[in-house]
């Protein structure tokens, strides 16, 4: 996004927003084109946590055919645009979900499928499941149901596509803007020593999304014990061979 900001057309739209007269009728065209293209080619990382994953194969394959919307499954978070959480997240799983989410490059979108991601669903009484996914990461679209049919999944994805096209789906920005809130909820659940390998504050600075809410008491607590990420050591021969 920061590269797009540097285009001259963007500056003109800023002048329009500030109350100036619109001089260029094509000012938004580039943004709209980017949003359109983005909404039509989405790679989906499905983190199959619960039972909802069973509805994805029919939604993906020939019967309902997600690919006609440009949505394809993707194997790694680094190349994915959408993160699908397909059911209940236990506290142990939630840690991995957050790691996965933070590894995805922005812009990224989260879809919570099934009632469990909304409010715990049928596991509302369970000591081991996190209840409200929205508290730990921003969610763009919820597809409620136990479980939602593939039609509902497709309809939810179409809603997300519409939101991306119109520029309303910007929840990934909220994670950077309100990082302190999300980190606070994570620390409440995982303990004070919770740390992910991703430096979110530095990323927020990179995306120019730092607000008053990005840093706060919880990030201060994180900085107190945060260990810098060490690069993995890479070598071609094994260690024993090198020493001999």
């Amino acid at each position, binding site marked *: 996004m920061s590269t797009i900001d540097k285009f001259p057309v963007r500056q003109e739209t800023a002048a329009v927003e500030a109350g100036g007269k619109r001089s260029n009728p094509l000012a938004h065209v580039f943004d709209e084109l980017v949003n359109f293209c983005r909404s039509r080619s989405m790679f989906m990382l499905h983190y199959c946590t619960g039972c909802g994953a069973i509805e994805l194969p029919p939604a993906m394959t020939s019967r309902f055919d997600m690919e006609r919307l440009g949505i394809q499954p993707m194997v790694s978070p680094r190349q994915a645009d959408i993160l699908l959480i397909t059911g209940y997240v236990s506290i142990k799983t939630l840690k991995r979900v957050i790691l996965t989410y933070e590894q995805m490059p922005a812009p990224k979108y989260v879809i919570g499928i099934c009632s469990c991601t909304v409010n*715990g669903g049928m596991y509302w009484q369970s*000591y*081991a499941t996190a209840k409200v996914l929205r508290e730990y990461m921003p969610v763009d679209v919820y597809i409620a149901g136990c479980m939602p049919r593939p039609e509902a999944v497709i309809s939810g994805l179409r809603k997300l596509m519409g939101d991306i096209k119109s520029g309303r789906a910007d929840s990934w920005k909220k994670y950077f803007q309100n990082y302190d809130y999300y980190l606070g909820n994570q620390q409440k659940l995982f303990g004070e020593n919770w740390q992910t390998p991703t430096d979110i504050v530095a990323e927020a600075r990179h995306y120019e999304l730092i607000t008053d809410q990005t840093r706060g008491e919880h990030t201060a607590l994180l900085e107190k014990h945060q260990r810098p990420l060490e690069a993995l050591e890479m070598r071609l021969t094994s260690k024993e061979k090198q020493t001999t």
Partner: protein
Amino acid sequence: MSKELNIWLDNLLEDIESVQFKRKSSRRVRIDVASEALPALLELLQGHASYVHLSAISCVDWIDNDEFELVYHVWSYETRSLVSAHTRIPRDPGVYLSIYDLYQPAAFFERDIHEMFGVYFEGSPDMEKFILTEWDGPPPMRKEFDSEAFVNQTFSWEQYRPQWLKEIEEEGGGITSRPEDARR
């Protein structure tokens, strides 16, 4: 051979006084036995009656009687029948003998029961944490652990009339039955 073995076992177990024996069907037997006698019974079943497969060990918390009930399910491939040996141990201190030397898969079940109920098995090879590696509360399957109170204390809940739900209701969707009604 296999039929004779069953008849022989039935006759033997019916004769032992401290053992309550109940044949539920041709393939299921329930035995209630005192906790001191259970390892000997399992040794008899495994060594002389072909019950070589330990299917599971399950645990029931009878908090009103202050007892844990341990159920050992053993299966015989020869007679094709399942014996469930029930025994009860006092809840406090909740320590029992491991049957790892008889059935090695028992280590797996005993570790699980130790984690979920806090029953300690003497002689089991590993009593470390198993599935709940990131849990440091009390054993969660014990009856005195109030899961609902823990959940209400730890987690917060989604509002039931949020803005996005109103938007869904405008489109014709929404909640048809509320959780309060279902819990009644």
